[in-house]
């Protein structure tokens, strides 16, 4: 027996990937393309890493301005940097 997609005891995955959402988004934008079944998990991974980087950057910005709360300008400046980085 090769595999099981769910763990025996708990069938509840923490931080489930919104696979349907990702597939729908991709289909909306590029209807002529197809998405492989496992690649949406990697897209989810990519999103996680992107958000992670964004959060780190905005946190750095907030700490530099000695603010205890992340404000929108911190996020904006962070977004500029990270989006440029993730351009590929």
């Amino acid at each position, binding site marked *: 027996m090769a595999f099981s997609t769910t763990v025996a005891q708990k069938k509840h995955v923490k931080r489930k*990937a919104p696979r349907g959402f990702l597939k729908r988004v991709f289909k909306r934008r590029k209807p002529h393309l197809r998405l492989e079944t496992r*690649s949406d998990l990697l897209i989810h991974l990519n999103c996680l890493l992107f958000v992670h980087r964004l959060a780190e950057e905005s946190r750095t910005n907030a700490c530099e301005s000695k603010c*205890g709360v992340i404000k929108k300008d911190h996020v904006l400046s962070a977004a500029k940097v990270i989006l440029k980085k993730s*351009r590929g």
Partner: protein
Amino acid sequence: MADRYRPDSEPTTRTLLQRVLDTADLRTPRRRRSRRTLAQRTFLESPASKRLSSQTKTTTRRRSHGARSVVRLAHVQANGDLEEQTPRTLLKNILLTAPESSIVMPDSVMKPVEVSKVVQSSRQESSQGSLELQLPELEPSLTLAPGLPAPGKRKQRLRLSVFQQEVNQGLTRSQEPPGNADVSSLTSSLSLTFATPLQPQSVKRPGLARRPLTRRAVDIGALLQGLRDNSLASAPPADIVLEDTQPFSQPLVGCSPSVHHSLPHPSHIGIEDTERAVSHRRQSIGPGQQSHISLPCSELQPQPPEVTEAVGSQEVMEARKSKESSEDEDTSGRPAGPELASSTPDLLKTKQPHQFLEPPSLPPGVAVLSSEPLESMPVRLPPRPRTAGPRHHQDPYKAGLSYYAKLFSFYAKMPMEKKALEIVEKCLDKYFQHLCNDLEVFADHAGRKTVKVEDLELLMRRQGLVTDQISLHVLVERHLPLEYRQLLIPCAFTGNSVFPTQ
């Protein structure tokens, strides 16, 4: 010596120790090590005796553990003994000193005759444990036998509390202080362990034995009286309240006189209310069910507002139907006051055909009345306008984005503004655009129309997430849950199979 075997109806400490003594006959290792030095023996015995005494203390509280602990003690004490210091003798001394029916009779605690037998052997055991007991009632019961010989054995006293010193001072001494202290403390402590059983027992009772709940007997008369008061007090406002929710708006003003003129017979009104509530409830539950009268009474007690509602509904019903039925009920209800149980089934039977006359109208009213929060819902839902249109684009898309935005707040580990979250969502939107474009380019470059894993890996490499040091598998392992890992990373399984296949 108390060698007689007690019936096991009440496992006292004595019985437990006795049992141990009986069973512990064949402990040969004990004899082998009889040549211990004094210090070793005392050292061994002091924790053992301490354990024994602590266990005796606990046995007063929990009988079941006594045998086990004593057995353990005997086992521990197997090593070091002189002939007069054997666990047997120690336990026997305990049995001697422990009063017979210890718990109940604190007066019989001190038995000088038996105490005299304790002698030097008993002094060590449980004296340390007795120190732990620290019972304040030690002073009054200090009538130890003066004839206790105290052997001059100095042994380690692990803890000599203040009260113990007081005990020593309080006791009449005939021998040197330590021995006497030991014996007296032992006996007194032992006696006290049994002398003050009332308190620990009273303490332990709430924990172990549930006190039977003392329920106040339900006074039907008082109940009905209270119901009547409730109905009278809240009838006018209840009518007003119910008036809004009744689907068929009956002249409730006419009902209130019916309530008021039934005032002169309060008990009967109460009975009638219970009947009405019974019938009402029966309606709501299901037709044709004759339940006990006690049941509605018990039901009524926690739900007086429903009774008032029931009263209101019944009043409405009666207003709809002919008044004669209600008056008949009144007249029949009045003489039937004392014989509630007999009359109410008849009344209910008479009422039920009346009620069944309008089942279609009533159940909605009943259902509406059954719970007030539900009342508002059927009223509100129809007039709500349906929002159609761009729902399919915006809402799930925003929901998905907000999912990632929540992750952003997790990763940031700092408090954030709501506006910042919105910006994150916009950012994600742009990111998705870029992502899809890039994937399209990569797939086209590879001459495919399907986006595959290799395209994603290339994308991540270009983004700088996947490097020579960090491979994609590493990232997968770090950030994705286990189930996805299983899907993504090829793993070897039994039968020479690899999943997922490459």
